[in-house]
């Protein structure tokens, strides 16, 4: 089955991004495909490569980058939401790309299920 995932909260402040990551990993392990992970609202902060969490805690941004690299998952950051919040190519972490909201609607159409994390 093809899943699309929508992440609506930034990292560290809310668990939403952690839960989305665990869901994505579990889906891949179960043999499902991830059509796309889309980052909207404050979710765009997940793509900030300058994030440097304490070394004894998880690194949410790096988790996503690694997932993208290991499983060729398409990580898309909404351009309008990102511009507002200061996420640009200058500070974009590896594995993410910036594109339009149409990528979310397309994911909703093409994927079998869209699962949302965070508000």
């Amino acid at each position, binding site marked *: 089955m093809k899943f699309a995932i929508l992440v609506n909260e930034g990292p560290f402040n809310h668990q939403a991004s952690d839960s989305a990551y665990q869901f994505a990993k579990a889906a891949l392990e179960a043999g499902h495909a991830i059509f796309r992970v889309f980052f909207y609202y404050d979710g765009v902060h997940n793509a900030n490569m300058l994030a440097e969490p304490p070394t004894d805690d998880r690194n949410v941004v790096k988790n996503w980058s690694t997932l993208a690299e290991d499983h060729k998952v398409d990580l898309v950051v909404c*351009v309008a939401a990102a511009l507002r919040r200061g996420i640009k190519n200058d500070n974009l972490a590896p594995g993410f790309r910036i594109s*339009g*909201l*149409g990528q*979310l*609607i397309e994911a909703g159409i093409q994927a079998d299920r*869209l699962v949302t994390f965070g*508000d």
Partner: protein
Amino acid sequence: MMDEDRTDEAEGGSGIVKKFMYVNRKAPYGTVYALEVLEMVLISAAFDQDVHLVFTDDGVFELKKGMETAGIGMKNFSNTYRALEGYDIEKLYVDQESLDERGLAEADLIVPVTVLSRAEMAKLMGEMDVILSA
């Protein structure tokens, strides 16, 4: 307002038409959700999907008439709801219980909507293919 996204993205759905529902549950201005949901809704119009907009819980406040935002220094996006018709987005639903417990009436709303009971709203939601909520 929100045209930076609308380029080179039409269709993409290759003929598939799904029932999309946008569930608005947040008041306007206190958070950005009302505004950024509208941006999603306008984009989905370009994809020719079957779009349903639901306003429930504090989401009904988004449709209140007479907003004047100069005093809080934020942009008033209230008129965008009136513009939805021009994008062929005409399925707007509000539930009566949410209005009632907030002391609001249908006459308070800036656009015509279909008023449902919460039970009817649940039934409508149960028919959707894709639900986006804020």
